């Protein structure tokens, strides 16, 4: 009818300028052997990509990344829903106070969170408490994979659970009260009410999907916290350390002088990461609409 | 001078269910046409098609013989009043009413004067500086009306404007709208599910059910000669009695009772008879039955009588010596009988 296409133009321009354009250029670049010592743009076909596919370090990083993404996002989602339930079931005054407190982590830079949750930091406290304070005689050994993977996920969840909390609160506020009243009349327990009313409403909400997708996309690029951990574990100069996500790997390759700034390869890695992220998101999207139908 | 013609108009939202189905309708210049139907009958969709807010799946809308196919709402020179008022919350009453003039950059009329004139017409001059959230339902609807009439449109469209108001307000605003209509003389299409509104305000009524327009006529015609039994029961309070009868060549049989009625029909049909056309007596009448219960309306009572297991409602004004369980006779003019076949369509 009278669709204002012209409104879209600036955004489309930007999308091409900072998105599609640079990515395409990078792609072309990744088809060469560009590096700081050898700045030639001579195309070598998919050589870099093939090399990547056979590089175990890269695959390790992909695995680690995938693992951390799934773990972190699920934890964020669960924690967010949990916080939301706490907040919505409390009185209105404390609601404001607590939700304000819960929001704070979002504003914190990931790197700062990385410091916060580092072994020396929180765990000296915790260990001290456990060991001496409560005389349990045990302590948490932060060099175990179980521990550090968990801590990384917890750190990420620390920052982003509030996001899911906010979204969930918004969704819960749209659930008609009558559903709960009917459940009360039928004598349902709190758990049943959650299982049958609250949870389905949250899970099938398109809003949660969008939030999930955004977080998954972001989580694939996880850097600061795992990187910090590679220091605590003394593996900062080891490529393909157990905590290296793809981003961390790329950074290490970039900043180490052992290799010779293989920019083309790094770019190829980044593009592969991009593709994997997009594919994952598409899968989630498709899987989701199937569940919804 | 605006007449509207709808030709084979259809609208479907998912290619399976049709909200509006092959509607043909002519609306005359300056006519106040009411589209009357139950919830979900497609009446709002029909109005929105006229407004241009929805595009037809098939069929055409003509304004004065001009096809409105490519014409967006803002160019159709129509005004619309919505059920939930749709006032702009961020603007004062003054700005709300002035909006059509300001937004379309109309330089011909002096905005200030026009707004003052219209607000005094609608008796809301004191509210000009308020915001919609500070107004009552009735006041909000008056503002919405003001906003609609200020730009002197060729066509007024109203989508159940009184449905969100309480009964007393509704009656009051009904009168207002009628006065406005007399004053402004503009072609108006008014959608409602309330038959009182339709009967009291319309020049003609178009009855819509399940997306189809099943009868168009003056209120009298619709009331007295419904083309479908459903219409008979939809209009009128209490609704028309629909009694199953067996037709014979000159008789109508209800159970074991008979009515003399010359007809050329046979088989099971439905007889329609309005409660106010029936009288009650202790002796003498065409049919007899037992009183089941009374409903008190204030100025009258409704007696429900069981005649051969058919429940018939009768409107009476005096029930002094009648009580539940009494056997009574009912009488009526044969000319008031309306006949409908098994499908509900009227017959002669």
């Amino acid at each position, binding site marked *: 009818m009278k669709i204002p296409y012209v409104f879209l133009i600036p955004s489309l321009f930007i*999308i091409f300028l900072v998105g599609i354009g640079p990515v395409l250029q990078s792609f072309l670049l990744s088809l060469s052997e560009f590096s700081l010592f050898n700045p030639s743009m001579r195309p070598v076909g998919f050589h870099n990509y093939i090399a990547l596919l056979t590089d175990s370090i890269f695959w390790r990083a992909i695995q680690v990344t995938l693992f951390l993404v799934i773990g972190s996002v699920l934890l964020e989602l669960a924690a967010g829903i949990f916080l939301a339930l706490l907040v919505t079931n409390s009185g209105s005054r404390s609601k404001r106070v607590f939700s304000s407190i819960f929001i704070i982590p979002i504003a914190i830079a990931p790197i700062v969170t990385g410091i*916060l949750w580092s072994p020396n930091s929180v765990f000296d*406290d915790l260990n001290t408490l456990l060991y001496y304070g409560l005389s349990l005689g045990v302590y948490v050994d932060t060099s175990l994979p179980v521990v550090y993977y968990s801590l990384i996920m917890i750190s990420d969840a620390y920052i982003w659970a509030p996001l899911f909390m906010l979204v969930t609160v918004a969704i819960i506020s749209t659930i008609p009260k009558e559903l709960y009243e009917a459940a009360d009349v039928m004598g349902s327990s709190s758990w049943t009410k959650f299982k049958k009313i609250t949870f389905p409403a949250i899970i099938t909400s398109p809003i949660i999907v969008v939030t999930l997708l955004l977080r998954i996309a972001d989580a694939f690029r996880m850097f600061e916290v795992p990187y910090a951990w590679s220091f605590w574990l003394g593996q900062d100069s080891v490529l393909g350390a157990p905590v290296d996500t793809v981003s961390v790997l790329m950074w290490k390759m970039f900043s180490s002088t052992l290799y010779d700034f293989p920019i083309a390869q790094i770019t190829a890695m980044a593009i592969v990461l991009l593709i994997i992220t997009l594919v994952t998101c598409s899968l989630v999207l498709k899987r989701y609409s199937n569940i919804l139908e | 001078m605006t007449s509207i013609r709808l030709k084979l108009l259809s609208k479907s939202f998912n290619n399976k269910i049709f909200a509006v189905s092959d509607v043909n309708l002519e609306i005359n210049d300056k006519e106040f046409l009411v589209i009357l139907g139950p919830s979900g009958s497609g009446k709002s969709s029909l109005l929105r098609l006229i407004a241009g807010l929805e595009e037809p799946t098939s069929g055409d809308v003509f304004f004065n013989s001009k096809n409105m196919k490519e014409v967006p709402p803002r160019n159709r020179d129509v005004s619309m009043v919505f059920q939930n008022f749709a006032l702009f919350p961020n603007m004062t009453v003054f700005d709300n009413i002035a909006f059509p003039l300001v937004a379309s950059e109309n330089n011909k009329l002096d905005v200030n004067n026009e707004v003052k004139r219209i607000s005094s017409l609608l008796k809301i001059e004191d509210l000009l500086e308020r915001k919609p959230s500070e107004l009552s339902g009735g006041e909000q609807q008056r503002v919405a009306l003001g906003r609609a009439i200020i730009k002197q449109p060729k066509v007024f469209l109203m989508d159940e404007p009184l449905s969100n108001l309480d009964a007393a307000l509704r009656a009051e605003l009904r009168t207002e709208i009628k006065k406005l209509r007399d004053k402004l003389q503009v072609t108006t299409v008014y959608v409602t599910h309330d038959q009182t509104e339709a009967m009291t305000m319309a020049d003609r009524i178009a009855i819509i059910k399940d997306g189809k327009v099943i009868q168009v006529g003056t209120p009298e015609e619709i009331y007295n000669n419904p083309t479908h039994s459903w219409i008979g029961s939809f209009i009128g309070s209490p609704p028309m009695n629909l009694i199953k009868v067996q037709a014979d060549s000159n008789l109508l049989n209800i159970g074991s009772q008979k009515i003399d009625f010359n007809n050329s029909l046979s088989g099971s049909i439905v007889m329609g008879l309005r409660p106010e056309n029936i009288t009650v007596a202790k002796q003498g009448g065409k049919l007899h039955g037992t009183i089941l219960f009374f409903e008190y309306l204030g100025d009258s009572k409704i007696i429900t009588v069981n005649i051969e297991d058919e429940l018939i409602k009768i409107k009476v004004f005096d029930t002094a010596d009648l009580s539940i369980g009494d056997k009574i006779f009912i009488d009526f003019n044969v000319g008031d009988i309306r006949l409908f076949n098994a499908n509900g369509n009227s017959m002669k």
Partner: protein
Amino acid sequence: MLLVAAALWVLWPLSIMVEEGFRVDIGPLFSGRGASFIGEFFQGQGGIRFSTIEYVKALRVEAYPRLLVNSVIIAGSSVLVAALAGVPAAFTLALYNFRGKAWITYSLLALRTISPFAVLLPFFIIYGRLGLFDTYRGMAIVYLIINLPVLTLMMRGFFKDIPKEIYEAAFISGASNSYVLRKIALPLALPGLAAAAVFAFVGTWNEFFYALFLTGTVTKTVSRGVWSGFSESIESFKILEFDELNAGGTLAIIPAIILALAVQKYLARGLTLGAAK
């Protein structure tokens, strides 16, 4: 009860950081930080000496005020441009259907999946040629990658939140798209715009990678400041000087937290990203 526990959970690490910035005295038995609180409780010894030295050091060494100004300018201008481009686009996406609409929405989402490394070199090269390296303009442009999607998708949600009839009444009254956007949609969605802007602002403020690669001494941002404090400690001592870091960390996050708290009510509505309608 659980609420309180959860709140503590959130605040505990933070309080350690703040407190460490003040260089709380450490009890002799415990090498851990913050343990003195607990240690004190159980051992009845250890004292608390407050000293603001770390905060002052952070301010001076990292030239914090300069970093602050830089971050504000960069984040502010990037969000502004994102809003100017994103709001009209969001309006169109919210109200109309057209071919390619799904592509645009998907592209916006995809924009957020771009990792800095994926576009680093092109930016490096182009910025080198155009002299946009280490400039406010350059940084603002790069951050559009993360800001445009946020602003556009969130505002689309807010515009969709406004009841359809209000738009219809406006259009029928003869208003143009531009008029409706300016006079009706934006005023009504203003809280949402605030929320989206803060969200984008905070995201840009905290962002590290692009800042690291594309800023120099002129436009160095706060996040770099925190990071370089971090890496300096690592390189020089191979252990982390927590006191400094914590002070710096605290200073780094204060502005962001203040903003987040201010709009937390609006953040909830906006974060639904309009997908529900």
